[in-house]
């Protein structure tokens, strides 16, 4: 964390102190902040390491907070079953925010390797949702 952020951390800590929120994680490109409650104090928590993933894998991530759906609410089958070949930008799941459905898209050409979150589970911003094997490394 850079010192230019320390004012913001102090401000966030002040706000958090008056809530019943136990833990706050903020993630952005290249940096993340995690604040948590310890008794009456708000402290900066150490970053949790990203989940271990195969070096040949990439993940489709949540572009927003929402409920992760493997299948469209009208459908019985998954949008992209494990083993499906997909192109970069193809929809592999959905994020539901109230009535709104946002696409979860594949970041690469490849094969769907695993769903990393249950159907209907809540995802935070940046949560890894779908593991993919890029076609350049699997072929």
């Amino acid at each position: 964390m850079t010192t230019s952020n320390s004012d913001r951390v102090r401000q966030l800590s002040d706000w958090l102190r008056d809530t019943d929120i136990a833990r706050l994680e903020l993630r952005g490109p290249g940096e993340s902040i995690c604040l948590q409650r310890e008794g009456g104090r708000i402290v900066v928590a150490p970053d949790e390491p990203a989940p271990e993933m195969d070096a040949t894998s990439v993940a489709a991530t949540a572009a927003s907070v929402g409920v992760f759906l493997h299948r469209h609410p009208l459908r019985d089958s998954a949008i992209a079953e494990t083993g499906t070949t997909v192109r970069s930008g193809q929809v592999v799941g959905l994020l539901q925010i109230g009535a709104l459905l946002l696409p979860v898209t594949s970041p690469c050409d490849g094969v769907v390797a695993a769903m990393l979150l249950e159907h209907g589970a809540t995802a935070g911003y940046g949560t890894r949702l779908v593991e993919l094997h890029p076609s350049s490394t699997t072929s």
Partner: protein
Amino acid sequence: MIEILSASALATVQDLGRVGALRWGVGTSGAMDPLALAAGNILLGNDEGAAAVEVPVFPFRVRFAQDCAFAVTGADVAAKLDEPVLPWWSTQARAGQVLNLGLPQGGAWRGSRAYLCLAGGVEVQAVLGSRSTQLRGAFGGHEGRALRQGDTLRFGVSDGEQRSTDFGLVPPALALPLQVDGLPAMRVLPAAEYTLYSEASRAAFWSEPWKITAQSDRYGYRLVGTPLEAVSALEMRSHGIVPGVIQVPPGGQPIVQMRDAQPSGGYPKLGTVIEADLWRLGQAPIGSRVRFIETNWDEAVAALAQTRRWLDEVRRLVELQRGYRSGR
């Protein structure tokens, strides 16, 4: 511009209807599922009441003559634009691409009509304040008739104007569900002649399923079930009726007036499907069964307000998403 490739008839241009023209003897017309039409328009950033193509017979195919953002709502018809398109979803088509709407799918809800909404809305002349096709009067919509193979429709967005696409909605059939014993249900207000039917008939009307016969269309849905018996023979003069009115002809099998209903009729009226639930009946497939729920004026008004709240929430979320994307 889009070009109709299908020979199958009965697809029509519809908006939310020619409201306020009954006084001139002109029926309402408009989408059989106004909620699907309004939501599809909201997805595209259109006015809720922009005209769209209502498709009741499948498969149905159109070719885009220019780039165009579109949304398919209503029944899940396994839409394909080269690749599969999700239901209740906005998509960008490129010039030359063909959109194919297939047979309505089962899944969590089976509808019977799909709406093809286009960015800017279908551009046809408004007649008496509406772009809906008035089939009986042969005016409005596209040349006052159902669409034919080779017809072309313009829409109100110039080539190259970008609309944010690639997001969708949870359909109201799931967000605002209404079922009795697993069957789609509609709330009904008892009408003027309700009390002239036998107690057994009235009870059966609420407690038994009603099957939608093949003689059902945009004019009216003919239902079949235990015949409804009047206490005495009823003779009436013709009087004004509106979509939703449930008439009972002498055979005792009810007819629900739908969007293309004529503005007057002479059969006794048992009840009226409330405005807020008419889309549920409009989407019920021929051969399927439905149930009726007795309601009252206050509940009918509250149901309409609930529908309005759903549309307002949809618009709020879509506009947030649109703003978020354009701000990136």
